[in-house]
């Protein structure tokens, strides 16, 4: 297992989520899945593992990353390109049957255009065939799949980015087109004969839920089975770190691994990998001994400095975006409240009581009614929970909102104190 933080992983490098893979594959027998979650929690990796899992059960599985798509046609092009190698792998009899249709679709994709309102000046696009053409084309492409003997899994990565692209590039008509796209996905595709033989696994990190809520189209994604990825349990996290240590010949025993997990708190593989990276770098650079001969005590002694490396200003990890994100998402006034609440929660690793935070917020909103203050608190509380800033911990008997990620808490504390 390699020390990789940032890029998706497969095979030996995919660790600790085999149960979730089985569970998602089970759901796919009857349902399509929408897997949403913050960035860097391993959505792409698990989706690829699910693909491998269903392939072993004789499914066809393809992946399309649609983040670079700016319109519906680009989506179909991606789908078509991803299907091409799969078509080639079909038995010759079926292939012959499908080849002509598939090639014809390829030609049609090249010929149609999407009507983007306001694009350019005279707009060649506006004079193009009706925008519904892409729907017919998409339906035809999917009909072709649905005639195959085996079931299909189509994994669409980063769908929200594509939808945001459509809205950004077509201010007057983008929202309408997004609605139509999602409707097509929910209604038209499901109405096709044999639709049950094509399952969809859709993932995304950048606010699909916010987007559909903002534009009153939450219904369009209701037909998808919503799933999330939890962090590792402590045992799984320790096992992963020890496997990494074995690979890099570091004497990280159970106790040392437990300390590293405790230093990270939010045992998402990305953050564990990153913490391990900093530790490895510390051990190799700062110990007089060879990294491979460092003792457990040597390694434990480097955990705290490695964590500090992660939170120092100007160092390798930048946590500012966690703060900046609030302003972008919530606007200046609400973001200031959210920052104040997070600063309170950061005071203690075990977090802060909601009652105390509400009192703090009331002090910040002296001219508002009690209802308004309470409403603001609940709204911010839920947003910060959904976006993985904090979580409600009731292990002490009292509910306390505490940071998920301990390095972020440290950064936050440092950031907001002299």
């Amino acid at each position, binding site marked *: 297992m390699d020390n990789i*933080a940032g890029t998706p992983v497969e095979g030996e490098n995919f660790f600790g989520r085999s149960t979730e893979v089985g569970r998602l594959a089970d759901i796919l027998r009857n349902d399509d899945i929408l897997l949403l979650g913050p*960035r860097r929690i391993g959505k*792409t990796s698990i989706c690829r593992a699910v693909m491998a899992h269903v392939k072993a059960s004789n499914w066809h599985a393809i992946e399309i990353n649609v*983040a670079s798509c700016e319109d519906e046609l680009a989506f179909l092009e991606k789908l078509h390109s991803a299907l091409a190698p799969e078509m080639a792998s079909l038995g010759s009899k079926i292939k012959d049957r499908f080849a002509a249709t598939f090639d014809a679709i390829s030609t049609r994709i090249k010929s149609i255009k999407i009507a983007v309102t306001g694009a350019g000046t005279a707009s060649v696009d506006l004079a193009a065939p009706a925008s519904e053409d892409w729907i017919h084309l998409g339906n035809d492409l999917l009909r072709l799949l649905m005639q195959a003997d085996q079931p299909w899994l189509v994994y669409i990565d980063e769908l929200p980015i594509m939808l945001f692209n459509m809205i950004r*590039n077509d201010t007057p008509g983008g929202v309408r087109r997004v609605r139509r796209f999602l409707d097509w996905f929910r209604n038209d595709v499901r109405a096709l004969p044999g639709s049950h033989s094509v399952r969809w696994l859709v993932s995304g990190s950048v606010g699909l839920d916010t987007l559909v809520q903002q534009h009153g189209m939450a219904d369009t994604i209701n037909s998808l089975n919503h799933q999330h990825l939890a962090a590792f349990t402590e045992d799984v996290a320790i096992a992963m770190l020890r496997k990494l240590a074995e690979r890099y010949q570091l004497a990280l025993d159970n106790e040392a691994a437990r300390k590293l997990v405790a230093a990270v708190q939010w045992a998402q593989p990305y953050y564990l990998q990153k913490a391990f990276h900093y530790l490895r770098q510390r051990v190799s650079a700062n110990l007089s001994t060879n990294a491979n001969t460092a003792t457990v005590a040597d390694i434990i002694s480097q955990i705290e400095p490695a964590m500090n490396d992660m939170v120092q200003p100007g160092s390798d990890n930048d946590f*500012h975006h966690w703060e900046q994100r609030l302003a972008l998402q919530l606007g200046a006034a609400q973001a200031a409240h959210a920052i104040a609440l997070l600063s309170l929660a950061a005071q203690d690793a075990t977090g802060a009581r909601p009652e105390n935070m509400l009192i703090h917020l009331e002090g910040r909103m002296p001219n508002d009614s009690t209802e308004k203050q309470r409403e603001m608190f609940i709204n911010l509380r839920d947003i910060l929970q959904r976006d993985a800033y904090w979580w409600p911990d009731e292990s002490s008997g009292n509910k306390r909102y505490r940071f998920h990620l301990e390095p972020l808490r440290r950064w936050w504390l440092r950031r907001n104190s002299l």
Partner: protein
Amino acid sequence: MAQKEFTVISHHYNPDWLSEEALLASFVARQNDFAFMRAELARAPLQGNVQHYLLVGVRGVGKTTLLKRLAVAIRREPDLSNHLLALSFPEELYQVKNLSDFWWAACEALVDELDYLEQSHEAEKLLLAIGQIRKHGDKNNLAADAGFKLLQDTCAALKKRPVMLVDNLDLVFDRIDKSGRKLKDPHSPAYWALREALSTTTSPIVIGGSVRLSDAFIDYDKAFYDFFLPKRLGKLSLDEVHSVLEHLADVQNQPEVKERLRTNPARVEALYELTGGNPRALGLIFELFRSGPNSRAVEDFERLMDITTPYYKARIEDLSEQAQVIMHALAVHDAKLGLRFGHTAAEIASYTDLPTTSISAQLSLLENEGLVEKSPAHGRTQYRITEQMFRLWLQMRATRRIRQNVISLAKFFEVMYEQEELRAMLKEGSGTSAVTTSNRIDESQGKEIRSHVMEALDAEYETGQQDIPGDLERRINALLSTEFVENFLVTALQTPNSAALVLDKMRKLGYEKHARPLILAFEAALENKEDMLTELEPELQGATMHMYARLTGKSKKKTRKKAVKLVDGQL
């Protein structure tokens, strides 16, 4: 040998032009970083997931050299060359205007590499394919991936995985972020397409260099959010600097320079602080040691600034007029800076008489260029020039008074480190501390503080403080004496009200011009702001921390004990 001498030390600004042999001979610093990255590459599989890296650091810190060193290792060392191919990109990719061009540049780098490896048949074949595919390619599709496919297919046929060593990756990103007619689109689909291409088990491995972690790398909603693992290349340690200089002396067979280095550690240390441990400056420092056997650090520094003038002059002249005004203001507007990171946009606006909105916009551009860095950690965002040598160069080119401040700082460093050496030698020789206790502070607490030490210094500083005093070295020696630091300032710090008066007095008398690290350290000790020391301009940090340790005794227990004794006995 003559050839080697020339190549080793003459490419201060173009390490890419060094021959492989010269590079290997001169590559002394950054051994840990190199070993780490090399081991990562050795472990990278021909097919499987990989980690992409981004080397981050100011200009001259050694990014290009490290990338080039890695390329040489990939070419020459069998455990790397058996499964990897180094694609070295030129420092500037002027031909790249979109993602498609970037992939073609990668193909051209592969042609170069195949030529180098004497696989001319493959190189010719690839060159032909590039020509044919480009000719018939989709010129309207800016993110067309025909070049990428050709690169992948060629490498697959060679059974090698490409390692793309891309300097100035942030600038490459700036060139490909186009969306149709729209330029500079941070959400450009090209970014996502590139990310997708780098996310498979056969993707090229990317090791990039960048002067900063720009928004493209850290913004949550951008494609490369936390995608590359940044590896920051900081200043070299003093030990590394000594190793590099001694190595250069050995390689060039100049034992007399090695001797000068050994007998003038204060000169090296002062230059080290002034140049921020920047590897690019080391070759220049070596030349100074070679050509000026008996020179002092101040003279060295002036010559260093003179040598680098064409380089920095060209860089400042590259900027717009408004940006030049702002850079100048950031460099020279240091009045009452105290313990701070830099200046706010409002302060610069006030100094330059430009609207704050214009200043903010320009600062943002300068930050994107890596010329300015910011810290939002102290209330309003503060800005400063990223490169220490660039800032000092601007200060040296400013008015006489500002230039004198820099020269005084150089002198302060040299005197301070000479004193430290002397102390260490005396301590070593006699087995006792060099600290004297002959003078006693005779003062009343609180109000007006006057000791015979202060009064004597006051008298000296009250006259002609605008100029560099002729006997500056003697004065700095006095300021750094045990009598003044341990016996007077440390004692004063025991009673904060007195210390505040002392600080105020020292500032009014202009001590900050000639002994800034001492004054800042005193302020940090008085106000318990040790944390702020790491936020100071880099050239001030080492000396200020040093003085802070003397004042607070945090790393010198004896001094601390002595200070307490003095307080108990006399105040």
